[in-house]
């Protein structure tokens, strides 16, 4: 038998082994285990603010750690920093490339980043008298779909070139490249302890990575199309994904498998974005059908909906203190709900 055939056989054997080990651990489903839990209350949130200012589709938003400021990115070629309490614009950062797909706020509040079809991640300093470009991180060979700061000196990126990367912002170089996906990487999320991150890609897989040693630790399957959104459950033991297959799923890291799927026969729009409430009980998922559906994470039931946008909900975010949820849309508006 040639080496290639041998490798193929070995790979198939290992896949069966993993399948069997997962099955052996699957003594119940999360929904069954949670059947005795009281249902989450019907969640009816009101729009408290509508943030108007962008002139084109909004593609991304990210809360600052102060839970008051947030950054949004639009294909009008601007990043806007908002004071969500007042609805006022604090800053408007013009972008070199208007084809932006992601934005991020550094935990310190000093920096923001953006990127998109320019294949670069640009980092800006908000604290200089005029907002200045700190670095253009240029090494990806595909679009930048997501970026998240670890600190003022390190940032993680996900790219359409199928890789994720950890960058040293000061040198502008990639410290680590995370290689394993076979489709465009669309999203990433940092673990609460900042030692790991999870990525979702067009290969319909979610992968868990060790930030420091650069290795892929676990791969989660189940989705049948691109994974566009991903987030950690607040305990750090599970991840939630949203996909073009119109479902969201929760995967438990320690049992290494899908434990529940959030879907509805009437829902046939892809999931674009998602965010969890601070207890992890509620999942806010933005869809192509202009709505944001609210799911009970334990029981898998829909408990509410945020309707009000006139186009696709492209981004969703809950600040660290859990006091509201923000939705951003192709209708050019952001809404704050609670």
């Amino acid at each position, binding site marked *: 038998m040639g080496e*290639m055939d041998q*490798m193929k056989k*070995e*790979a198939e054997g*290992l*896949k069966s*082994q*993993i399948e069997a*080990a*997962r099955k*052996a*651990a*699957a*003594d*119940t*489903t*999360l929904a069954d*285990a*949670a059947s005795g*839990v009281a249902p*989450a*209350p019907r*969640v009816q949130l009101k729009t*408290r*603010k509508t943030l108007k200012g962008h002139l084109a589709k909004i593609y991304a938003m990210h809360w600052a750690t102060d839970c*008051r400021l947030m950054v949004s990115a639009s294909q009008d070629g601007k990043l806007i920093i908002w004071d*969500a*309490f007042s609805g006022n614009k604090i800053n408007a950062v013009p972008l070199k490339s208007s084809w932006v797909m992601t934005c991020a706020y550094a935990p310190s509040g000093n920096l923001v980043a953006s990127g998109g079809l320019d294949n670069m991640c640009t980092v800006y300093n908000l604290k200089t008298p005029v907002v200045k470009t700190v670095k253009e991180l240029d090494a990806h060979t595909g679009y930048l779909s997501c970026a998240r700061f670890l600190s003022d000196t390190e940032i993680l990126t996900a790219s359409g070139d199928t890789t994720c990367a950890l960058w040293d912002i000061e040198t502008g170089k990639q410290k680590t490249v995370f290689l*394993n996906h076979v489709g465009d990487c669309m999203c990433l999320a940092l673990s609460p302890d900042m030692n790991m991150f999870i990525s979702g890609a067009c290969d319909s897989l979610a992968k868990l990575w060790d930030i420091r040693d650069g*290795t*892929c*630790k*676990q*791969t989660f399957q189940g989705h049948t199309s691109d994974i566009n959104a991903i987030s950690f*459950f*607040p*305990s750090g*033991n*599970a991840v939630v994904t949203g996909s073009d297959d119109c479902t969201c799923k929760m995967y*438990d890291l*320690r*049992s*290494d*498998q899908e*434990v529940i799927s959030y879907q509805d026969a009437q829902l046939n729009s892809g999931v674009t974005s998602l965010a969890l*409430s*601070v*207890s*992890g*009980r*509620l999942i806010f998922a933005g869809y192509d059908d202009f709505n944001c559906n609210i799911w009970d*994470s*334990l029981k898998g039931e829909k408990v509410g909906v945020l309707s009000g946008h006139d186009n696709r909900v492209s981004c969703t975010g*809950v600040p660290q203190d*859990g*006091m*509201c*949820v923000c939705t951003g849309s192709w209708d050019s508006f952001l809404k*704050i709900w*609670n």
Partner: protein
Amino acid sequence: MSSKLQSSNNIAQARRTVQQLKLEANIERIKVSKASADLMNYCGEHAKYDPLLMGIPASENPFKDKKPCTIL
């Protein structure tokens, strides 16, 4: 690319795939019942600190527009 180079690339790729699968096969897995219990416990313990679940009184809602007061 010569077909010899291509096939040695394919073998290298196949080796990496097997290597990665070995890594992923060898992890410890806990039962879903235990994983579920921990998820449920986390939600239960943190529910009271979840404003979107519990509701926010108007006076404590920083996003709610303050209505102007009229002096009668």
